[in-house]
């Protein structure tokens, strides 16, 4: 079988990214009778359990930059972020009518209340608000979380009409371990040779992981890395930044492109944390649910939507990323009206100031159109970083 060209891989990712009717997931579902699709919103759900049920976990990350919101504005006031209204739009317009259930993670009150809207509007669908503990002791938060995971498993079993065995879960854990391993390889490769991997390419490659079965996504990343290796792209005099605050409502692709074009290599980000939150492999033997719970309690990245019990630990994930990827600055890019990102930001900013790490802040909506101010802001930021490092 001949290797895929970079263009083929990137075009395929772009096609998946542009398709807000989710044709690939529809095809997957239609390929065999009895298949089911479970949608989930940011930031984190244990996709391993959905996969273990034989279902496709489908990331619903809003309607994107181009979708016209006609109905959604009747559900949300102007001072609420855009992702819930475009998600409602996707549902009302029939774009996700093939989805058999939706999961709403405990990330903020908007997604929390959206689970209630779903209960009121789509009474025949499986709706699960998914709570992760804010207490990280095994015998306290861990026990609660394991019960939550069991409840989730039982709900999915009912939908599947069959039991989900521990072996099923362990197999799925292995699939996602491999997926995370390749994501890390892509991120590491980008950090090492950022001129070879355009950040917008990496972005849509990761987005593909929201709609494809994990096995296919892993293959796609392998194809991408093999293809990009053969490319000869010019090295630019860009600075290296990480993006923070974009973990839920996604920035328009043009924003990612604009940041890069203005002179910043993005060497890490928090765009799709569901695929990267667990920082280590989950064991593939023993009690799968227990292991998933343990991984969450002990190895999930410190983040804005999680209580940090030890004040001094706040910001560790961000600083780890800065160090690991050799970043020179941080761009806080948060959705407008996003409580978790915007309330967390001042604490992170203070820590960066203490350590003299340059940063800028910006806000966006998934459909922000004007990129000129973004380009100017990040361009000036890139110049100032270069000046500092030259000084």
């Amino acid at each position, binding site marked *: 079988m001949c290797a895929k060209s970079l263009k083929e891989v990137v075009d395929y990712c772009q096609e998946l990214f542009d398709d807000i009717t989710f044709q690939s997931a529809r095809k997957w579902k239609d390929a065999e009778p009895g298949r089911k699709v479970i949608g989930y919103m940011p930031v984190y759900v244990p996709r391993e359990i959905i996969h273990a049920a034989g279902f496709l976990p489908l990331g619903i990350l809003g309607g994107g930059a181009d979708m016209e919101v006609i109905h959604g504005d009747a559900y949300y006031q102007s*001072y609420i972020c855009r992702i819930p209204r475009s998600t409602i739009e996707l549902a009302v317009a029939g774009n996700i009518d093939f989805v058999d259930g939706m999961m709403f993670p405990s*990330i903020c009150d908007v997604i929390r209340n959206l689970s209630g809207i779903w209960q009121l509007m789509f009474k025949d669908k499986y709706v699960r608000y998914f709570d992760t503990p804010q207490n990280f002791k095994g015998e306290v*938060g861990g026990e609660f979380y394991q019960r939550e995971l069991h409840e989730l498993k039982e709900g999915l079993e009912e939908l599947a009409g069959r039991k989900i065995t521990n072996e099923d879960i362990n197999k799925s854990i292995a699939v996602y371990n491999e997926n995370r391993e390749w994501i890390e390889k892509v991120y590491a490769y980008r950090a090492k040779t950022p001129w070879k991997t355009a950040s917008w390419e990496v972005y849509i490659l990761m987005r593909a992981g929201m709609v494809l079965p994990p096995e296919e996504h892993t293959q796609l990343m392998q194809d991408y890395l093999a293809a990009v290796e053969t490319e000869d792209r010019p090295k630019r005099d860009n600075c290296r930044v990480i993006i923070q605050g974009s973990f839920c409502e996604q920035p328009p692709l043009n924003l990612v492109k604009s940041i890069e074009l203005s002179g910043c290599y993005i060497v890490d980000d928090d765009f799709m944390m569901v695929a990267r939150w667990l920082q280590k492999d989950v064991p593939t033997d023993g009690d799968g649910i227990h292991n998933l719970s343990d991984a969450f309690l002990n190895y999930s990245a410190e983040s804005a939507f999680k209580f940090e019990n030890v004040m001094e630990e706040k910001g560790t994930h961000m600083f780890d990323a800065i160090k690991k990827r050799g970043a020179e600055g941080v761009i806080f890019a948060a959705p407008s009206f996003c409580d978790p990102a915007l309330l967390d930001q001042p604490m992170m900013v203070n820590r960066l100031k203490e350590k003299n790490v340059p940063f800028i802040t910006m806000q966006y909506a998934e459909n922000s159109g004007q990129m000129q101010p973004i380009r100017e802001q990040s361009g000036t930021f890139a110049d100032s970083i270069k000046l500092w490092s030259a000084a």
Partner: protein
Amino acid sequence: MSEKLEINKSKSQILQKEMITSNYDKITSGECKVSSTFVPGNLNELVMCFDMANNLPEINAIQNGMRKKSGGMIMEAERQGHSEDVCTYVKADVGQMAKGNIAPNGKPFPNPDLLLLSYTGCFTFLKWFELLREDYKCPTVMLHVPYDANGNPTKSMRDYIVKQLKEDVIPTMEKVSGVKFDIDRLREYMRNSAKAEDNMVWMLEQSKRTPSPIDCYFGGVYYMGPIFTAFRGTQDAIDYYDFLRTEIQERIDLGLGVSTPEGDMGEEKYRLVVEGPPNWTSFREFWKMFYDEGAVVVASSYSKVGGVYDYDGFRHDPENPLESLADYCLGVYTNRNLPTRVDMLAQNVKDYNADGLLINSIKSCNSFAAGQLMMMRQIEEITGKPGAFIETDLVDPRYFSAANVKNRLESYFQMIDQKRRGGGSATVAA
């Protein structure tokens, strides 16, 4: 006669004010340790077990809002880098610290000895106390109350909360206060709580009468003060609600309607159920827009924000103290899912014979605001009564547009008139 009643009315208000002031005096006295926590999920009985004073930052923000000080504090927080888009209670608190941290009694707030992060019904709480911890650097203990997403809190949720109380919250409070936990003391306080709660529910239900003797939103704010703050579980609270009951009964016996800051309201023309917190920076002006038109709020979700006692009959239970604290937290209004909120308010519209539901949507409060448009449509459908939607903010004066609010209210009252005359209805909304 009305003079006497004004004095009677004033008596409960004066008493309430004295109680709130006495708590500020206690907090600022330097004589006891101070724990800060939130109104929803307020574990006042537990705080008292450790001889600590209970400081509630939301109440401080409200006080600053009513005294027209919050605007400057919010600007100060924004100058420090806090976003325009987030909860203005948090910014008022941060700004208050920056401006010398002065309590409403004019004395400086001491740094809290403990931040009791009862994470109940609002995500902002979690960030709020992380932010305060940055400055106070004091012990901060999390009590995670799972969201009641299915309208039916589970044993698993309750067990999780009880375990956190036993393993984390109580040991931390013992350590900070130096006082050993005594469960019998907790039981005693909870017995007191239940007594006051009985009278409070009686009070809430009196607005089923026509005319209603009380306003359950603007007036309700005063009536809820003691039980939602540092007095639930005290003899003072029992006495206050006994007193309030007598006062209300007196109005009923005399056939009087609502008492307002300008005296008796006069004819009751409209009966409303209100969802969402009030605006505090123009509280009087806002209320006046209602009573000038003869509108009384007969029920409100805001009067349930510190605990729901009427809908499913919850009372603090001294026989199962920790489990009961868990049930209390699980049941606060903002911890309930949207279908339950809809059911609660629709029931209120019917049971209190209201003309409809008015939503005061708060710009910076996602916990209440996200989903309110959907709730309004659902409640209109269930009750057949028209709804209306206004938008203000809690303590940021920049977002209170008196002319807009007044216009919308007037249109709404006209719509109700039209509906009564048998005409059609349309929602008044943004």
